[in-house]
């Protein structure tokens, strides 16, 4: 596409509509993925601490579920979540089919194993000595858990960002449970960056698809840059 004024002008005229469209897609994407990652983190940290420091029946099974879950195909997750929220499923009465909340649920299922797995590695590397010190100074078990999370903060942040990376860039599950729906005025209901790119590309609207793709790549790059920075920040323990 050349950038002669003659070709640019009509594109700009078209722009306000397109811009609203893109903005609503970004908003839905961020809402779904950030909420899913927040919920996954709240769920994953206690699980990582339990698996890391407690003995209980079924621990090995749980650990292998986490490992399997980290690489689980997102379409299968979408399928299972769609069934769960469908009329025949256990959450059928909640009316969640083709809603952002259903997408949050499926991204939760996708992100939680990643966040748990990476957090588990992070909290496991906290020295027992340091945990003992917190206990020795009068900390409760809960205080020891807090200290462990603080000591592992860079690794946990990496885990959260990795979970976000998986959530924001997956297409399979949100397409199935969300349905890629937009209103007649062009604002997104359940259309995310990934499902929109898929649709726009298929319909030959490459420019819009490219803009959406650039935004998605920029988000993922930003997240990766943060991970790298945190990785450097976590290096400086006393020794």
């Amino acid at each position, binding site marked *: 596409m050349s950038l002669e004024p003659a070709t640019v002008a009509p594109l700009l005229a078209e722009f306000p509509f397109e811009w609203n469209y893109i903005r609503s897609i970004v908003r839905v994407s961020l809402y779904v993925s950030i909420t899913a990652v927040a919920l996954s983190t709240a769920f994953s940290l206690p699980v990582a601490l339990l698996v890391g420091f407690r003995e209980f029946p079924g621990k090995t099974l749980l650990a292998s579920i986490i490992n399997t879950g980290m690489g689980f195909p997102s379409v299968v997750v979408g399928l299972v979540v769609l069934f769960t929220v469908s009329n025949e499923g256990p959450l059928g009465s909640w009316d969640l089919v083709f809603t952002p909340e259903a997408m949050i649920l499926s991204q939760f299922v996708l992100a939680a194993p990643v966040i748990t797995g990476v957090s588990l590695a992070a909290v496991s590397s906290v*020295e027992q000595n340091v945990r003992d*010190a917190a*206990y*020795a100074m009068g900390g409760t078990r809960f205080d020891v858990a807090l*200290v462990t999370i603080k*000591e592992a903060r860079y690794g946990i942040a990496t885990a959260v960002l990795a979970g976000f990376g998986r959530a924001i860039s997956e297409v399979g599950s949100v397409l199935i449970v969300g349905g890629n729906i937009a209103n007649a005025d062009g604002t997104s209901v359940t259309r995310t960056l990934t499902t929109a790119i898929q649709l726009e590309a298929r319909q030959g609207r490459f420019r819009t698809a490219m803009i959406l793709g650039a935004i998605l790549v920029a988000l993922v790059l930003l997240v990766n840059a943060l991970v790298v920075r945190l990785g450097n920040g976590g290096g*400086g*323990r*006393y020794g």
Partner: protein
Amino acid sequence: MTLDTIDVHHGYGTETVFDGVSLSVRRGEVLAIIGPSGVGKSTLLRLLALFDAPDQGTVRYGGEPVWQIPEWQRLEYRRRIGMVFQEASLFDASVRRNAEYGLRVRQSWPDRIRHELATLVGRTNGTGDAIDALDTVGLREKADQDASSLSGGEAQRVAFARALAYEPDVLLLDEPTSDLDPRNTAVIEDAVLEAKNRGIGVGIATHDMHQAERIADRVAVLLENDVIEIGSPETVFENPADERTRKFIDGELVY
């Protein structure tokens, strides 16, 4: 206030470490625990710090058997005990926050959250007691440094200060100076004596017989799964009642 063990049997798996140990740490005294490597000095300190329940026997604080009460009650006793490990094990935070930790866990949750928020926005209105404790080990001016930037000796001094900051009644030290140079060792020993003069009971495991002679009021000799002898440094080092003590001190008993 006395912390004591009565006829404690303890071990790991099938391995016996203690076969009926009875010992007490009293207020205002320094009790040195000496014995060869692997005899169980650290294990004994962990029992005294109420970390682990003994397999058999009683551990008491002020006459109260602490393993017969629920955990939340035991916490009250744990909070009167300070423990310093052989490795400094500082938190990855500022020296000040390390020194304050014991005080913070004793605060109410609203106070703790307020304190956390104040720290987040960079207002470090440090608790006086933590700064005083840092003063005791000569590290007041390092309060705002990162703990990770300290030398090994300074880190061990901070570990000592943070156990002192909440004014425990009993202080347990696991070879606190074994990796330190003479100057850092002297700082710690002076601080131990100062703590003792304030009425704190100190239990210190040490490899260093001269250290035991310098600072201890009583010396307990741990050998062959038991405290074989306990008495004043003069008696234990110069005129021991047990032949094994004399051999251990003369270096004839090689373990």
